[in-house]
């Protein structure tokens, strides 16, 4: 069945309510993107999410929307605490997959042709690839503390500084985690992996600030032209995947028990006040904290590796850490009144505007940094959240470029090509244990993230601050 998109303005489209939809769909896209989006099943997924009980205002899709499972990737939905539901399919398997950005006092010219060596050093420093395992063996007690304390545990164990905590979403630790709700299998999968990148689209990227669009915001974020930066993209590894998998079964039973009709079983959900939802939230919070600790540990490994070259004076300071697969309780103004709602962001980034108390004090006059990676051959962006995002998207923005090729298509396109060499000729040194992963992640496998950013900026949901260009990339 075709889904009709009504154009609202240059950057917004609407799917009118019909059938069992409880709210309309709201899609951020340019005209060209809207045509592409209609080609896969992601719009049907926006419609499916709109069927869930207690959904508020809109089923929202960001311009990097693509076909996922359950929610579309790039989907945002907020739910009423009394009528609404919690859905693991609205968070995804890689719970609290996210991005953090470090900026240094080093300028690009100071790298003095050492980028290739730095790439190799970063590859050695960060365990990466399929089933990658941590440098550090955790005891059962330590893992419990990781699950409840997140990045705070990592800093207390010597992996980072106090300031890192201040500059992370949720201060690197979400409340409500209960390790008793995490299965033995999830623990087995996650325990050896803390402090590792994983595989697929996860990466560590050394780059530089190539362009600044908003001087005041860039200065507040510690970003200056030509300064060296590091982007880290990873999540909760096997622990998060297993938490999601474990919960879906109980959610399927719960959906049946509570009479929730599911247009897609991957949307299995339970009422927010139910025991099933409480238990999933407690386990999900553990995975969220695991991911925060994971990125914090890798931050430490990056600093150690870069310090080997330039000494501690290069000062790799955390700019911010954002989550893009998460469900959280947040307060938003709905119909003129402040309400506590449960916001699901699946492949979407929080983008709180200026003045919000959850934005670190040093950024509060500007808005929250929003980190949007592109592909390994072009660029990534730093944006900041806006008041418009608070009004329209429950303080959410896009999370990346979005794939335009399947993994198989990308491999086919890369076959016979010296991808590492092609990128090195562009000044981008790629390191990976897997040529297959690099083939799947070739730049042209992704849409141009600049197009996604133009929509967010044009719609006023997030404001452009800076563009980052890669120099060295470690791929999982």
């Amino acid at each position, binding site marked *: 069945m075709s889904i009709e998109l009504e154009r609202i303005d240059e950057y917004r489209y609407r799917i009118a309510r019909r059938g069992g939809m409880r709210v309309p769909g709201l899609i951020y896209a340019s005209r060209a993107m809207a045509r592409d989006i209609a080609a*896969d099943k992601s719009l049907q997924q926006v419609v499916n999410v709109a069927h869930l009980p207690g959904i508020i205002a809109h089923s929202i899709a960001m311009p990097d929307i*693509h*076909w*996922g*499972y*359950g929610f579309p*990737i790039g989907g945002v939905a907020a739910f009423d605490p009394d009528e609404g539901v919690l859905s693991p*399919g609205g968070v*995804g*398997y*890689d719970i609290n997959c996210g991005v953090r950005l470090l900026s240094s006092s080093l300028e690009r010219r100071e790298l003095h042709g050492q980028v290739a060596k730095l790439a190799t050093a970063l590859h050695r420093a960060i365990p990466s690839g*399929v*089933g990658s395992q941590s440098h550090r063996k955790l005891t059962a007690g330590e893992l419990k503390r990781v699950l409840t304390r997140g990045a705070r545990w990592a800093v207390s164990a010597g992996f980072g500084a106090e300031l890192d905590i201040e500059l992370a979403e949720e201060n690197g630790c979400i409340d409500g985690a209960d390790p008793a709700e995490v299965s033995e*299998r999830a623990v*087995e*999968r996650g325990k050896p992996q803390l402090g590792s990148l*994983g*595989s*697929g689209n996860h990466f560590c990227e050394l780059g530089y600030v190539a362009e600044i669009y908003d001087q005041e915001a860039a200065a507040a974020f510690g970003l200056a032209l030509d300064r060296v930066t590091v982007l880290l993209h990873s999540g909760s590894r*096997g622990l998060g*995947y*297993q938490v*999601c*998998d474990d919960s*879906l*079964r109980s959610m*399927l*039973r719960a959906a049946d028990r509570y009479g929730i009709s599911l247009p*897609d*079983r*991957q949307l*299995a959900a339970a009422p927010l006040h139910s025991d099933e939802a409480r238990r999933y939230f407690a386990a999900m919070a553990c995975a969220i904290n695991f991911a925060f600790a994971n990125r914090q540990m890798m931050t430490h490994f990056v600093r150690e590796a870069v310090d080997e070259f330039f000494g501690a004076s290069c000062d790799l300071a955390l700019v911010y850490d954002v989550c893009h697969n998460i469900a959280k309780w947040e307060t938003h103004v709905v119909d003129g009144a402040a309400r506590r709602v449960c916001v699901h962001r699946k492949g979407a980034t929080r983008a709180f505007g200026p003045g919000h108390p959850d934005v670190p004090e040093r950024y509060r006059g500007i808005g929250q940094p929003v980190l949007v990676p592109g592909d390994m051959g072009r660029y990534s962006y730093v944006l900041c959240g806006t008041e418009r995002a608070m009004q329209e998207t429950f303080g959410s923005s896009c999370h990346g470029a979005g*794939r*335009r*090729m*399947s*993994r*198989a*298509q990308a491999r086919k396109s890369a076959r016979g090509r010296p991808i590492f060499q092609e990128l090195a000729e562009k000044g981008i040194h790629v390191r990976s244990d*897997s040529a*297959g992963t690099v083939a799947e992640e070739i730049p042209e496998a992704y849409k141009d993230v600049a197009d996604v950013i133009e929509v967010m900026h044009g719609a006023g949901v997030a404001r452009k601050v800076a563009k980052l260009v890669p120099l060295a990339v470690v791929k999982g």
Partner: protein
Amino acid sequence: MQRGHRQLDHTADLALELWGESEVDVLLAGAEGVVAIMTEGGEVEEREHRRVRIEAVDREDRLVQWLNEIVVAAVSEGFLFGSAEIALDGATGLSATIRGEPRAGERVVAELKSATYHELELGEVGGMWRARVVIDV
């Protein structure tokens, strides 16, 4: 052989089409498909065996749980599925003895996160069992 698997394109993830003469055949085809993706093919040396029991919500859930058993064994423990004897108990139970290759983690070149319920199909049509499963990678 009357069972098989085929990989289908899916923008962000991948999907497997499975077929066989029975539901057990489809489960076996799924396990073989998952291992083929994770290892990019090659012989599996069946040096060890392990037992698996599943109590599922329904047939579809049983297929998802079964595939995830194979994925987790490979990714977490380096145990590669080779073959299995599967006994089904009604529409929800399963017990199996899996023979496979232990300590083969280095052969796993593609990390799968999980089989999903998204657009999951399983059923018998014209005497053949068929399934379609989307896998998060």
